[in-house]
């Protein structure tokens, strides 16, 4: 019970929320309770950590590593709530259930992070996905959001069906539904065509969830259409659960590697880096640019999956940390700038951000810091993440993939810098096209500043964070 306390608290809070909403519809109250719930769950993490590691039935395995991913997801959800408070209020007259969905989604991703069994993994994924459909389409006046929600609904449902069918095939042949059983199957069993088909279907589904080429087509549309606050959550916390399972079970040094799987990961990593970075080059919308670049980032992380052992696991965790912080910060700035009354879509064109740093030094600074981190400029968290990924790839002698990574990163650096230069250059003669929102609320400023600072501080002095990451993977 104690080890599951964070998840339990996460599950209880939506119920409390629903009850309070039925009694009293007040945005501030709902958001506060949601934040308190997240805070309580976060506070329960140390308590849970004291009892580790521990199996909870055959379905869940709570360990320090999973708990760290859950904590990160909780922080993301809390940041999204704090930064997005005004954003949600402006966009929707009845914003209360938004928080219910957000918390349920967080619970889903947390359940995935602990899952040891196909069933718990699948249930976590569905809890997450179903809440995400709702979240994407939540703002009723925003027709692009509705469109994004429906698109995601259809594709995610199809991908879930793939996952389920793949699991069934693997079960039919191996007779096990635990990940442990799957990776300890002999090479001979793994190479049977039914298992291969099953694994391929599972790969397709996971590839969809992580938006890896060739399962990436939904990403730009969803990023573009869905509200910035939801994208901030979906692109970071929504992926953490999947990554936790992948890191825990598929980066261990002993797992027999099917050559087909390696070929698949190699191909999709290379294609994700190439497609993501090249497509991002030609975008004029900031959210679409971030969408394609997130595909590229998933490609970089996939390079770590070509390697095995501790370094690869640390690479993934550290990269995810940097990526998550920078993403939330970047989308946070978009959220804050899209809060003028009457607005039904987000501030989107890159040109809208021209001269931001002159008018809003803090927002501009946060955006530039996160862009530089995405670009992998030294002394940011993103650079160190990239270094770790290269380290993992170099260990396996993947020189070709690393050359692709280096060359495509240049394209990445180019388009991020282009945006950063736009943010820093003087506004054109016409009135600044980006609205200047009313005074920022204190908590928003603090959260954004802390996120940007973390990105830089982790990049400059990563030793303490790396010590923790080391500890998680030993």
């Amino acid at each position: 019970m104690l080890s599951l306390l964070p998840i339990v608290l996460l599950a209880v809070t939506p119920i409390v929320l629903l009850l309070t909403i039925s009694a009293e519809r007040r945005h501030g109250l709902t958001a506060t309770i949601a934040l308190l719930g997240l805070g309580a769950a976060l506070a329960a993490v140390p308590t849970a950590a004291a009892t580790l590691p521990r199996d909870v039935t055959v379905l869940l395995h709570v360990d320090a590593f999973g708990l760290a991913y859950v904590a990160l997801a909780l922080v993301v959800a809390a940041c999204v709530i704090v930064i997005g408070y005004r954003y949600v209020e402006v966009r929707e007259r009845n914003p209360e259930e938004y928080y219910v969905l957000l918390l349920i989604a967080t619970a889903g991703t947390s359940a995935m992070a602990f899952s040891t069994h196909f069933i718990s993994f699948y249930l976590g994924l569905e809890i997450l996905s179903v809440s995400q459909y709702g979240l994407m389409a939540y703002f009723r006046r925003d027709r692009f959001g509705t469109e994004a929600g429906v698109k995601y609904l259809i594709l995610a449902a199809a991908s879930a069906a793939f996952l389920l069918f793949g699991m069934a095939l693997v079960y039919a042949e191996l007779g096990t539904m635990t990940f442990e059983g799957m990776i300890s199957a002999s090479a001979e069993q793994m190479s049977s065509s039914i298992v291969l088909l099953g694994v391929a279907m599972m790969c397709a589904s996971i590839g969809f969830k992580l938006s890896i080429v060739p399962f990436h087509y939904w990403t730009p549309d969803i990023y573009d259409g869905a509200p910035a606050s939801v994208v901030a959550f979906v692109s970071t916390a929504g992926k953490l659960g999947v990554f936790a399972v992948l890191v825990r079970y598929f980066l261990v040094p002993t797992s027999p590697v099917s050559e087909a799987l390696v070929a698949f990961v190699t191909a999709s990593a290379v294609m994700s880096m190439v497609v993501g970075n090249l497509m991002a080059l030609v975008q004029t919308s900031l959210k679409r640019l971030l969408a394609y670049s997130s595909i590229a980032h998933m490609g970089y992380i996939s390079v770590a999956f070509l390697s095995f052992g501790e370094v690869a696991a640390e690479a993934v965790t550290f990269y995810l940390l940097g990526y998550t912080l920078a993403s939330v910060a970047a989308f946070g700035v978009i959220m804050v700038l899209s809060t003028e009354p009457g607005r039904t879509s987000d501030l989107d064109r890159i040109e809208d951000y021209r001269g931001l740093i002159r008018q809003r030094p803090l927002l501009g600074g946060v955006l530039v810091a996160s862009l530089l981190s995405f670009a992998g400029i030294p002394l940011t968290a993103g650079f160190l993440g990239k270094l770790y990924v290269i380290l993992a790839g170099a260990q396996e002698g993947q020189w070709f993939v690393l050359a692709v990574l280096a060359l495509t990163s240049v394209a990445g650096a180019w388009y991020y810098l282009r945006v950063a230069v736009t943010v820093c250059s003087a506004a054109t003669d016409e009135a600044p096209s980006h609205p200047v929102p009313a005074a920022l609320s204190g908590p928003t400023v603090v959260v954004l500043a802390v996120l940007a600072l973390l990105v830089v501080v982790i990049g400059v002095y990563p030793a303490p964070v790396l010590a923790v990451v080391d500890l998680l993977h030993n």
Partner: protein
Amino acid sequence: MIALWIFLLPLIGACLAPFARRAARPLAIVVLAADAMALIRLWRQAAPADTTWLAAWTTEWVPQLGINFAFGIDGFALSLSLMACLVALAALAGTPGRGEEDGAFCGWFLLGVAAVLGVFLATDLFLFFVCFELMLLPTVVLIVRWGSGEARAAALRFFVYTQTGGLLMLVSIVGLHVVHHTATGVRTFDTATLAAMPLPGMLGHVFLIGFLAAFAVKLPMVPFHTWQARAYACAPTEGAILLAALMAKTAGYGLLRFVLPLFPAAAMDLAPWIVAIGILTVLYAAWLAYGQQDIVRVIAYSSASHLGYVVVGALAFNDLGRTGAVVQMVCHGLSVTGLLLVFAHMSRTTGARDLRELGGVWRVSPSLGAFVLVFVLATLGLPGFGNFMGEFMALAGLFQRFPLAGSLGAIGAVLSAAYALRLLQRTCFGAPTPPGGRAIGLPATSVLVSAALIVGLIWMGVRPQPLVDLVSVPTLTGAEQLAQGRLE
């Protein structure tokens, strides 16, 4: 500790400058002067054939990966750092201020100088890479914010080129680290430790190409030079000096400091190819310089041409070639700064920097013409100036190993005379054109700065021995001895 302070001083200056506003330029000059003084003191303390580091400082940075914050100064690093400080000082002192904007401007400029010094002083490969990349950001900002013409496009192109080279070098650095870790189980980025490790198979060649990519772009070498003329032309004068006199030197420095000691065998194998590209750079860039109409573009290509000698001198694998390369780097730093300063003044006062529009400056302002004359003569390698010593030694060293390349390289000296004299003739001689007639003499501070640069150049040309003594350091001669052993 002094090694750390030499890096930290400009960094602190960069942080303070934005708050100093109008006083930022004097502040930056004081900071750079203090840095130069510290370096000179270190130089005077050094015994002539000192074998160890003159000063070193190490602390843990990322222990999990064996990354150290490690600085070390030997004679080689000292000579280039001192040149960098003095040239940066000259750049700030020799140009007019920018009023209220000076705070931010000097801040970025000092950050660039700090990064360059970091490159010269770092003994940890990771730290070296961070500083090498850190040079980019200030340069891009200086070009975009204070540049002219197509500044944004030029800055982005510069960024993409250097970033490509930089990332390939990063892969090589991490590759070295991983090979060492696999062999010994120890994680380190320490240059000396990694240099002592034998590399299996062709890995040395692969890694060398990664390093070379970064340096070939930075120097730049043909065919990676296409960013250069544009960036120089669009950059503000101080930015162009930062690029030409300081950052281009980091490539030559990296070649001597890292590439040759880390991959001596691979460098020996690839030397004919690299030398061929170096000679091509010397000749082709000189040819390009002759065809330009924009003064800054002439200087840009001439700088690429002259730095080609650094590459061929370094790859000669002998004492003479290496010394020539270093002397050439130091003297080119001084002479290109002088050229950029006097021509910036000329184009500022005349409102033109096109060779077709200028003319007759000598008749209007003989003093300005005289300075132009001296710097042009220094650039074309007139005996008596340091540039002559550098080129001569580099070519002589090269001739010992590659006679044909050495002979071809000598043609470069003829070409450089051609474009340099064309530059002089088109701007200074003939009847004054309307823009040329507006030229006025250099202001007092610029006269002082230019005179100091000329004194430095002549000193290097007449008595280069102190510098030669300074750069015969074991970290560099090790690779040569290995190469000589292989040749015999």
